[in-house]
């Protein structure tokens, strides 16, 4: 099904099943521990041996020699994979560093060997016995120093590194009110619950990988390229995934090494990347330094806006596109965005939930708060004044497909009780707490990607949906079932959804908040094809056929789906193919975050007291799972504001706090009640579902709302995230004398 003109009325509009807060259909399996994850596939690979990864102890250099003898002789050891015996390996286009290093070493904890043994304990033990003689080389690890050598990166995903409209310098110079500030954000680790893990088995030259991966079709291709074997010989299976946040978008060392290990020992092998290895072995969200300049009239209307971003990555890597949202969010005739990329020999940077916006909004939305104050305007009002209904770089000929930022700002402010905020910072006391309120806009791109699905109906009228789409905890199973049930006129419990298998039609996969909208649109396409087939079987003209109650009806005739499907059942496959609507219309999701914090007058401890937000993201397919996504993302935003940071040791070139006792993410006690309001919106240019993505929107701006609240509470403006106690003390807390 081509989608190249805006959607008209369609079966999804019935809203009988889609749009209902249906419980997760996989919920019971998950909470009873019967949903099998990649490392627990005893059912399919009962005799799997255990692999343990040996990571590099240096950040850059060469392996002079490896001595495997003691390790090989250790109890239970079945084999050891190294670059020397793995054969020639290619590299996937999405990997910057090699997943198996050596003789060259590209980063700390890069996998240099896989030790395979009969038990996990034996493998882990023997891994300690691999002796590696290193020839270290000087690396570059300090973004602050290396940014000066930053260069312009190539366009990423079709979006150029730099954009320029009008005469920024002139307009900024003339502006009545100017903001010119720098902000910095640290490296972040995804810290998803399930570590990267794979069980691999060969059958002749056919490889099966039970793995934790967000993007099945991509990763089949990447594995084929890495191993130099045909795609057809690889099957990837990932029905359940314990979170990803982008960490599992690409092939990682667990999958490659499990495959190589299984080949070497002629037996299935499973590999998990151990928790303390994850931050340095896998990818992370890169740190940024950002400069923002805003030039506005006294009325707050922006005339000049510039956002420049510096980040670093391994040679051949990519930038953190933190200026992305600044191209689309606010008005202004004179604009600059720019990204510069420095070479760093730290572990490889890559996408983490809302790459670009998540940290870009941490800077832009604080700059807007600063502008509001400089203009003496309410921050909500400032944003309303700078709303723009078209792509401000392209002009009015490229309108937004739908944009309800102003509605979100108003509704969110009302729900939160924003008018109670005292605009003068440092004024409100509640016992030992200085209390402040802050807000920020939310913005995240809406991306659509072609997505396929197959639908079957059996003789009992049961519907089966098959696609390689993944559920990374987001609720995909449920919205797929809802979509098929809606179109075919059956109940959700008459639908079986099977996901995450490369034998199923290729889907959008889970990433960039494109998954839900694109992949349900793929199911919609297949279900509409099924409708045509059923109507044909029933002998009803498709335009007269109604699909209700498990029946195909026309007038007062009807036939059950099961009877039409017959004993052999019916199958159809289709895919949604997106045309150029995303070019003709700017597509994005919007919202407004509000936050109230308390800051201890003596110790500068920050505690979030309330969070609230209003969001517009097209049709909300399932308000329960959508809310779950938004509050989770708001929590992540709070973490980015207050505690999350990988600490770089610039001498050794690694992330020091590489386990969950040291890398802090919010716990329950950090997060109070979160109010989420969805603004009604249908986006007919986004997909036939009229939905947009919502999985990442909630993080974008959430941290800035926290930071702005801290400022409102204390009068201290920190621009270097996270806003920890030491920084607040250094910047002038306590504001009340002891």
């Amino acid at each position, binding site marked *: 099904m081509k989608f190249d003109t805006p959607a008209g009325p369609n079966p999804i509009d019935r809203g009988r099943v889609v749009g209902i807060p249906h419980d997760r259909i996989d919920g019971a399996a998950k909470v009873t521990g019967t949903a099998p994850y990649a490392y627990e596939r005893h059912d399919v690979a009962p005799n799997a041996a255990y692999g343990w990864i040996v990571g590099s*102890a240096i950040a850059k250099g060469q392996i002079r020699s490896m001595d495997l003898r003691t390790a090989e002789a250790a*109890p239970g050891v079945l084999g050891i994979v190294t670059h020397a015996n793995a054969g020639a390996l290619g590299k996937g286009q999405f990997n910057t560093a090699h997943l198996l290093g050596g003789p060259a070493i590209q980063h700390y904890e890069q996998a240099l060997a896989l030790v395979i043994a009969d038990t996990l*304990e034996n493998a*882990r*033990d023997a891994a*300690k016995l691999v002796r590696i003689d290193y020839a270290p080389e000087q690396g570059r690890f300090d973004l602050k120093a290396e940014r000066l050598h930053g260069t312009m990166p190539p366009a990423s995903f079709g979006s150029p590194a730099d954009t320029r409209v009008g005469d920024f310098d002139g307009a900024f110079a003339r502006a009545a009110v100017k903001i010119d500030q720098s902000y910095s954000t640290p490296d972040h680790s995804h810290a998803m619950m399930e570590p990267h893990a794979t069980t691999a088995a060969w059958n002749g030259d056919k490889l099966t990988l039970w793995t934790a991966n967000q993007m099945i079709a991509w990763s089949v291709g990447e594995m084929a390229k890495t191993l130099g074997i045909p795609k057809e010989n690889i099957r990837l299976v990932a029905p359940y995934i314990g979170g990803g946040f982008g960490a599992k978008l690409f092939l990682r060392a667990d999958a490659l090494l499990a495959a190589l290990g299984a080949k070497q020992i002629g037996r299935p092998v499973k590999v998990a990347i151990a928790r*303390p290895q994850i931050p340095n072995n896998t990818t992370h969200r890169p740190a940024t330094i950002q400069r923002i300049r805003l030039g506005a009239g006294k009325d707050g209307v922006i005339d000049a806006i510039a956002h420049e971003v510096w980040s670093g990555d391994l040679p051949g890597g990519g930038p953190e596109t933190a200026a992305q949202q600044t191209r689309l969010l606010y008005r202004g005739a004179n604009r600059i965005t720019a990204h510069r990329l420095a070479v760093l020999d730290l572990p490889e940077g890559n996408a983490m939930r809302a790459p670009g916006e998540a940290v870009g909004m941490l800077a832009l939305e604080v700059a807007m708060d600063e502008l509001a104050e400089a203009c003496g305007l309410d921050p909500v009002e400032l944003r309303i004044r700078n709303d723009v209904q078209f792509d401000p770089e392209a002009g009015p000929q490229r309108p937004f497909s739908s944009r309800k930022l102003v509605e979100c700002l108003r509704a969110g402010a009302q729900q939160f009780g924003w008018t109670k905020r005292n605009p003068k910072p440092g004024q409100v006391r509640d016992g*030992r707490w200085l209390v402040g309120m802050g807000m920020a806009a939310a913005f995240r791109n809406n991306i659509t990607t072609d997505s396929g699905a197959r639908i079957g109906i059996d003789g009992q009228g049961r519907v089966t949906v098959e696609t390689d789409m993944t559920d990374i905890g987001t609720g995909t199973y449920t919205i797929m079932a809802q979509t098929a049930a809606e179109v075919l006129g059956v109940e959700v419990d008459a639908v079986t959804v099977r996901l995450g298998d490369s034998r199923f039609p290729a889907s959008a996969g889970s990433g960039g908040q494109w998954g839900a909208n694109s992949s349900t649109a793929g199911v919609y396409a297949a279900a509409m094809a099924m409708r045509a087939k059923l109507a044909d079987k029933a002998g009803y003209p498709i335009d007269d056929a109604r699909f209700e109650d498990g029946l195909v009806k026309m007038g007062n005739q009807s036939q059950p789906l099961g009877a039409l499907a017959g004993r052999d059942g019916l199958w159809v496959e289709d895919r949604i193919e997106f045309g150029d609507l995303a070019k003709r219309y700017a597509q994005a999701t919007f919202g407004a975050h509000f936050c109230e914090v308390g800051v*201890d*007058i*003596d*110790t*500068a*401890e920050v*505690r979030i007291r309330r969070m609230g937000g209003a969001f517009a993201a097209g049709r909300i397919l399932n308000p329960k799972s959508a809310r779950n996504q938004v509050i989770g993302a708001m929590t992540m935003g709070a973490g980015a504001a*207050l*505690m999350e940071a990988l*600490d770089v*040791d610039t*001498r*050794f070139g690694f992330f*020091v*706090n*590489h*386990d969950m*006792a*040291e890398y*802090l993410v*919010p*716990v*329950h*006690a*950090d997060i109070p009640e979160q109010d989420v309001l969805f603004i009604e919106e249908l986006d007919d240019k986004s997909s036939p579902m009229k939905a947009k993505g919502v999985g990442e929107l909630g993080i974008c701006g959430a941290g800035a709302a926290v930071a702005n609240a801290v400022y409102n509470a204390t009068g201290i403006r920190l621009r270097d995230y996270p806003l*920890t*106690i*030491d920084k607040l*003390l*250094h910047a002038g*807390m*306590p504001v009340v004398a*002891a």
Partner: protein
Amino acid sequence: MKAFTYERARSVEAAVKAAASVQSARFIAGGTNLLDLMKLQIETPAHLIDVNHLGLDKIEPTQEGGLRIGALVRNTDLAADQRVRRDYAVLSRALVAGASGQLRNKATTGGNLLQRTRCPYFYDTRMPCNKRRPGSGCGAMQGMSRSLAIVGVSDACIAQNPSDMAVALRLLDAQVETMAQGGAKRTIPLADFHRLPGDTPQVDNALQPGEMILSVTLPKPIGGIHVYRKVRDRASYAFALVSVAAVFGQNGQARFAFGGVAPKPWRTDGADAAASQGAKAVAEAALAGARTTPHNDFKKALLRQTLASLYRQQEAQA
């Protein structure tokens, strides 16, 4: 984790004897610290002696009017004990400020006293660390030292003692009762139990090899208002940046012990003596001779501010 043998001791005497007969044996209590360290091969015992079933899980009154806490009493049970909550509330409060509910259900009084530092370089066996590998250097001192100690440190090591419980026990003048090799019992004041690093940072405490903790005793209750204030980077489930245990008495008298700032639960006579002069004076006395890094220098101010907060609350309640 190196392969090891395991036995469940039948009696305290047998446990101590077993510890003496096998080289590099370790007692295992809750295992919440030991097993993590074994997985990383920071601890590599050849033999584990399980001391969980020896009846050392009781809290009993002493003849002197105090309490004897068995070494295997779980942190959760100790914190919830009515006598502890009534007479030694600072201990209860310190315990519940530590770790998580699940960990406290497992963690024991003896094990908690012996938990090792949380210095991140100690935890990565590829990094230099004098505490883990004597003579290899200190990775933290010129590196990421934000969480580490600022008093009582040495050129060899600036690791902090991470325990909350131990800070309260130090404040309460607890004593540790042990049985050494050969079966001899001895009593070690908590003040002397943990060691400063000096040039042997690998030795955390005064126990001899194979010496087992039997119990911890608390003297008679001292009354007063008991507070424990822990300041950290998130609201729960994080180690202290700084913590203050305090008992406020009559006429501006008070006593203080500090966590997160030193290689041992930190207490100075000077700090107690300065009680009537307020937070700033107490902090200065407590941190006399402090030696900070650019990363952890803020702990000086933070300790002062944490004390200021406690004083403010005292005044508000008075």
